[in-house]
């Protein structure tokens, strides 16, 4: 089955299955769009297409229209830098880009009149989905999937419960796609953010549309709990993911939503698999290591990192690097600490900083800092935050002549904002006399 099949099998055709603060879409509207663009869709048949949308609802509409028709569907972050975008497009042999903000790239812009005759094919193409991920090092990578591999963990339609999914992630992210597919395939409704939305207005939208399933990072959940109206969310289930879920946030959520099923998910995009914990405690029980789980097996490496293998994997990285398959364990790079019957996540082995679910590679940020005139050496590290897991801080060795400049740090910060995504920009800057190097001349990164 392709996505359009799931949409067309819905009985309530005028009820929106997807809503945001700005737009909504129902079955009748999608059918109309498919009819209006049938020539264009025939033109795109078998091609490699990239989607780059700011509007989540528009992105979803295009995904639904193109799944089963195009050969490859690359879903790009709308905030990717032009250079990065060029790389993605060339490594996926993309032939056409569709966007709601880039020039000349809407479905309407495609001129099909010059085409002689388009074959009237109706076979369903097993579209390859390609998503971007920050990977283990914070450097972006492309991961291949199929609709089948992406929907392996989707729970089937439950006729007794009407699920309305809230989604706080942008759809280009793996977590966002998971929620979209869960709601489309299982005949549920979905309420999603648009990027400019404030958390407060999102909550209003969720409450108004009776969102009863919500997935968010622990950082977002802490923020949700700080908004008084959060108590009006009629949640029957909530999920935490993307960051380490500590006992504080888990018990706070248990108290705030006593009748709600709570689970936190550990997911490795690299391994293409994850598992969930439903006992309301941080970490996971040691039985997961010893006995394994349905379709997932876990081990601990010599470096105390989690090894995982599964039959439900992503099809691999573009670029041919190895990814988990049913024969190999893959190293997730997440460090574990085992205390008695419980295993706890301690952070990334390679020092990648997790800022509210977004991964930051300290060395990458250091390189950017050092391209600014006057910065001789930079050391970027995580400052522990009880609120957000971590914040980015840096120590700088600044050349003497630049130290006297009054607005040096301010200008450096402005520069960083043009070169880095917002969550990567250091929050704290400290000018120091020297930075400790280890005996290979690299910055000494202490745990």
């Amino acid at each position: 089955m392709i996505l359009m099949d799931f949409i067309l099998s819905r009985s309530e055709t005028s009820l929106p299955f997807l809503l945001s603060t700005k737009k909504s879409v129902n079955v009748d509207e999608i059918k109309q769009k498919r009819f209006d663009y049938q020539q264009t869709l025939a033109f795109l048949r078998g091609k490699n297409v990239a989607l780059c949308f700011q509007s989540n609802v528009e992105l979803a509409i295009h995904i639904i229209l193109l799944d089963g028709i195009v050969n490859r569907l690359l879903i790009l972050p709308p905030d990717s830098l032009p250079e990065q975008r060029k790389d993605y497009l060339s490594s996926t042999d993309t032939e056409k880009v569709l966007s709601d903000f880039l020039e000349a790239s809407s479905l309407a812009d495609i001129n099909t009149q010059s085409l002689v005759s388009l074959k009237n094919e109706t076979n369903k193409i097993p579209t390859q989905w390609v998503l971007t991920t920050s990977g283990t090092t914070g450097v972006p990578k492309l991961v291949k999937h199929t609709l089948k591999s992406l929907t392996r963990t989707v729970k089937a339609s439950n006729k007794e419960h009407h699920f309305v999914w809230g989604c706080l992630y942008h759809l280009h992210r793996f977590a966002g796609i998971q929620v979209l597919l869960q709601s489309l395939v299982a005949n549920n409704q979905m309420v999603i953010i648009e990027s400019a939305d404030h958390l407060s207005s999102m909550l209003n939208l969720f409450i108004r549309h009776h969102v009863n399933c919500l997935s968010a990072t622990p950082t977002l959940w802490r923020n949700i709990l700080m908004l008084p109206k959060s108590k009006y969310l009629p949640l029957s289930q909530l999920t935490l993911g993307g960051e380490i879920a500590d006992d504080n946030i888990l018990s706070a959520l248990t108290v705030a939503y006593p009748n709600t099923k709570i689970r936190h998910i550990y997911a490795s995009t690299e391994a293409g698999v994850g598992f969930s914990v439903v006992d309301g405690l941080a970490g996971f029980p040691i039985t997961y290591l010893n006995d394994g789980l349905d379709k997932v097996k876990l081990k601990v490496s010599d470096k105390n990192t989690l090894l995982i293998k599964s039959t439900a994997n992503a099809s691999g990285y573009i670029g041919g690097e190895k990814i988990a398959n049913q024969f190999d364990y893959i190293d997730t790079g997440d460090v574990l600490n085992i205390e008695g019957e419980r295993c706890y996540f301690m952070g990334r082995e390679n020092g990648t900083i997790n800022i509210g679910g977004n991964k930051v590679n300290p060395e990458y940020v250091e390189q950017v800092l050092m391209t600014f005139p006057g910065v001789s050496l930079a050391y970027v590290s995580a400052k522990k935050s009880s609120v957000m897991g971590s914040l980015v801080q840096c120590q700088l060795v600044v050349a003497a002549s630049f130290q006297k400049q009054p607005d040096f740090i301010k200008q450096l910060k402005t520069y960083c904002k043009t070169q880095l995504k917002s969550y990567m920009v250091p929050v704290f800057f400290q000018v120091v006399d020297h930075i400790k190097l280890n005996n290979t001349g690299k910055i000494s990164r202490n745990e």
Partner: protein
Amino acid sequence: MNNLRELVVTVFNEALELTDSELINVLEDDTVLLESGLDSLGFAILVARLEEELNYDPFSIMEEPVYPTTFKAFLDVYAQYADHA
């Protein structure tokens, strides 16, 4: 507790500036923190900076997690754990 209030307001404004945000209205007792103009990163900066100034972070100390919604509730949390400085 006036000193605490003044300090928090100063650091609050610092956090707003660091995140290029602006105060929506005036900071009053019943102002909801995350509707004041301060976003989640700003809030994290506020707590981190206050820890530098006061030598304690109530959110890491507290046994029962509390997530203050208003400005007054936030001040109360800091006042409650003041002897941990």
